[in-house]
């Protein structure tokens, strides 16, 4: 998988079928396009199903489509794209029928957009001149750009905060889907936390991600209301061995020891929901988000030694302290000058699976939301983790970070947990069918 990195800028080698080209080609009815199918959807799928797609495919260009259909939702073990638009929504209706219709409409639009097509069947510019277009148009001419759309259901979809079972789903709430506990030092703002539903849009072009969320939110008018949203501009984790480890805003490589798409059995153990949980969720995963504000200015003025001892890795190569290279094994017994090379209060020491006793798939993004009223950078990490059970995943890891030296430099300002259903299997399937059609 070639991802653009600082060392290896990836030119768009094999751009996917752009929206404009798609419609142009359809209009012209060229033989090549017709060979792939006669309807727009089929052409789009042909693009998506080509040699480009798939978490395990090699050689995918950043402009290509990622297949929408599959056993699992895309956007989890899919090699992390560069851009994020995450949105949490509340359902404003009590009508189960409306909720189902929305999930079906969303699925259809997502199927099209991830294939590089317009949100609606008609398109941004081909509709009635007196009607508002069924696509907002800012992605015209842009390739699929690796867009993935991942949907999750929050605890409040099953039972509202004041205990109402609006959709008859209370009995189907999976036991692990509960609000996260509070952790020492939390500064959680409820206004940017929680949500009945979430959509994670990831793409290699920010405009493609924003376009997708904007159109899905528009489709949801009258049924859902945006509760909060977050843009992310740079991935902070690798989720595949083919990706170089990116740096977070502390300037350190992040996600070196992450779970990767290639770790099949490990993913089954730590990421995918198995047969010991709710039936409808099998093959899905739990999504935890935390907006982690970094206190940039104090960090920047701390010494290199302090920074490295706080993280537990070198800032240059990302090697564990006491080792030479990034992927050298983390050895907590190594001593330098009689002291442990990796301090027991360092982030790596406390978060590493060896000491945390568990593993999670991290898929976070850096964010900069301008500056705060004091002129300080309002920046940090929008942390995203996927796991088989939040209790034995994020919660267990986070509890272990109570003594983390990094806490001095971070504040958790938002928190949410969602159950992401399994993948949409085929053109007749839709997000949440197993939950809502039963």
């Amino acid at each position, binding site marked *: 998988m070639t991802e653009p990195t600082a060392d290896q800028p990836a030119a768009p080698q094999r751009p996917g079928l752009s929206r404009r080209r798609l419609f142009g080609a359809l209009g012209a009815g060229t033989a090549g396009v017709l060979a792939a199918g006669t309807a727009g959807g089929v052409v789009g799928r042909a693009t998506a199903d080509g040699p480009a797609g798939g978490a395990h495919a090699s050689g995918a260009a950043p402009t290509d489509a990622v297949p929408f259909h599959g056993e699992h939702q895309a956007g989890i073990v899919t090699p992390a794209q560069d851009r994020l638009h995450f949105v949490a929504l509340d359902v404003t209706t009590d009508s189960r029928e409306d909720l189902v219709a929305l999930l079906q409409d969303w699925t259809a639009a997502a199927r099209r957009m991830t294939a590089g097509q317009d949100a609606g069947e008609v398109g941004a510019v081909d509709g009635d001149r007196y*009607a508002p277009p069924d696509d907002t148009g800012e992605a015209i001419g842009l390739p699929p750009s690796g867009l993935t759309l991942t949907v999750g259901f929050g605890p409040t979809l099953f039972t509202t905060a004041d205990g109402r079972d609006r959709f008859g789903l209370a009995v189907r709430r999976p036991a692990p889907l509960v609000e996260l506990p509070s952790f020492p030092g939390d500064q959680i703002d409820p206004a940017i936390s929680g949500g009945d539903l979430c959509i994670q849009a990831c793409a290699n072009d920010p405009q493609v991600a924003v376009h997708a969320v904007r159109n899905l939110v528009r489709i949801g008018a009258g049924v859902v209301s945006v509760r909060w949203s977050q843009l992310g501009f740079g991935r902070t984790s690798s989720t595949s061995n083919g990706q170089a480890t990116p740096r977070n805003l502390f300037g350190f490589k992040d996600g070196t020891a992450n779970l990767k798409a290639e770790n099949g059995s490990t993913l089954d153990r730590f990421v995918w929901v198995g047969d010991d949980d709710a039936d409808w969720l099998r093959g899905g995963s739990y999504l935890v988000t935390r907006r982690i504000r970094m206190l940039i200015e104090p960090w920047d003025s701390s010494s290199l030694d302090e920074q490295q001892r706080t993280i537990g890795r070198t800032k240059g190569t990302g090697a564990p302290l006491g080792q030479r290279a990034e992927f050298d094994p983390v050895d907590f017994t190594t001593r330098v000058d009689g002291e442990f090379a990796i301090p027991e209060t360092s982030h790596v020491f406390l978060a590493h699976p060896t000491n945390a006793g568990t593993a999670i798939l991290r898929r976070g993004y850096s964010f900069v939301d301008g500056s705060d009223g004091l002129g300080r950078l309002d920046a940090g990490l929008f942390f995203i983790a996927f796991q088989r059970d939040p209790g034995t995943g994020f919660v267990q890891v986070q509890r272990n970070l109570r003594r983390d030296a990094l806490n001095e430099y971070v504040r958790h300002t938002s928190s949410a947990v969602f159950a992401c259903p399994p993948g949409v299997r085929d053109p007749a399937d839709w997000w949440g069918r197993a939950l809502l059609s039963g």
Partner: protein
Amino acid sequence: MSVRDRRLPLLTAGLLAALTTAACSSADAGSGAASGGGESADTVAVAATDDACDVASSELPAGTHSFAVTNSGDQVTEFYVYAEGDRVMGEVENIAPGLTRELLVELPAGSYQTACKPGMDGDGIRGDLTVTGEARSLSEDETLARASAEYQRYVQSQTGALLEQTTAFVDAVEAGDVEGAKALYPVARTYWERIEPVAEVFGDLDPLIDGREGDQAEGEDLTGFHRIEQALWVGGTTEGMTPYADQLLTDVQQIVELADDTTLDPLQLANGAKALLDEIATGKITGEEDRYSHTDLWDFAANLEGSEAAVQALRPHLEETDPDLVAEIDERFAATEAELGQYRTEGGWTLHDQLTEDQLRGLSDSVTALSESVSQVAAAVAHE
């Protein structure tokens, strides 16, 4: 109101003349086609009190009827004739205790409801009214022509009250009655905000009457409602406002004359209905419209009523072409009204600066959803 953006396409003088002419003929065609009879000579008496609304006749022949509404109650009242879906066929407002006012309304055969609204509030005291006569189905063109004529009737029902209430407001300002003027300000604006789609057609008057501070070009003065609003609420005075009050009344008189004679075509109605909802989203929910008085919810309610009146005029056509859309629009108008209804107070509405973020979000969500539905109306009427 936004002054320079999102205005309905300005009409050239020639086109306007043509439109007005067409308006008259289509209105004539409408009444001829529907009534199958001439003027109705009889007058239907309506005895309105604070808890009753006795209409002298519950069955009428198709045609034009005059309702004489006498208010023997203690509260100011209104009288409406509604077709299905609370489509306003005719209304007369502001009937003070002891007064009798007349409503002239043309009623084709069909089922209607009459309503008195003591306190000018709520659904009113309803009664059934059956109109019999030759009912024939209208062609699509006739249905649309009737929509224009019907909306024109609605405009005419509002302009009288607009003039009356603006006069009262101006009188209070010129008498130096700050508290009286403050009380009348949102009331006069209600009639203005209901008929904005037609007011905006007259592009040069609109900014003079309803421009906001900051909208003016360099060297232009802020005039109209918002100039006086600023003096009343920020300065707590009417000092120096007489010239502005005089000018406001002159401008309103002029727009009332123009509006009474203007018929909007169905596409303008559809776009006007949507534009009114945009006004709510961009001006009222944000609190920009009445930034000194914070009476934005009065304007919100008026925009919503005006939008519904325009959509309801198109209803017979929409029921033929897109019944699902009609159902969705009905549902979403009701949802928005319910959302807004939470903030009704004695004699008015909660001030904008007393609404919480959550309350504003609820209002915003309902208007956004309604707007998505109403935005589909234009295409539905543009297809002949």
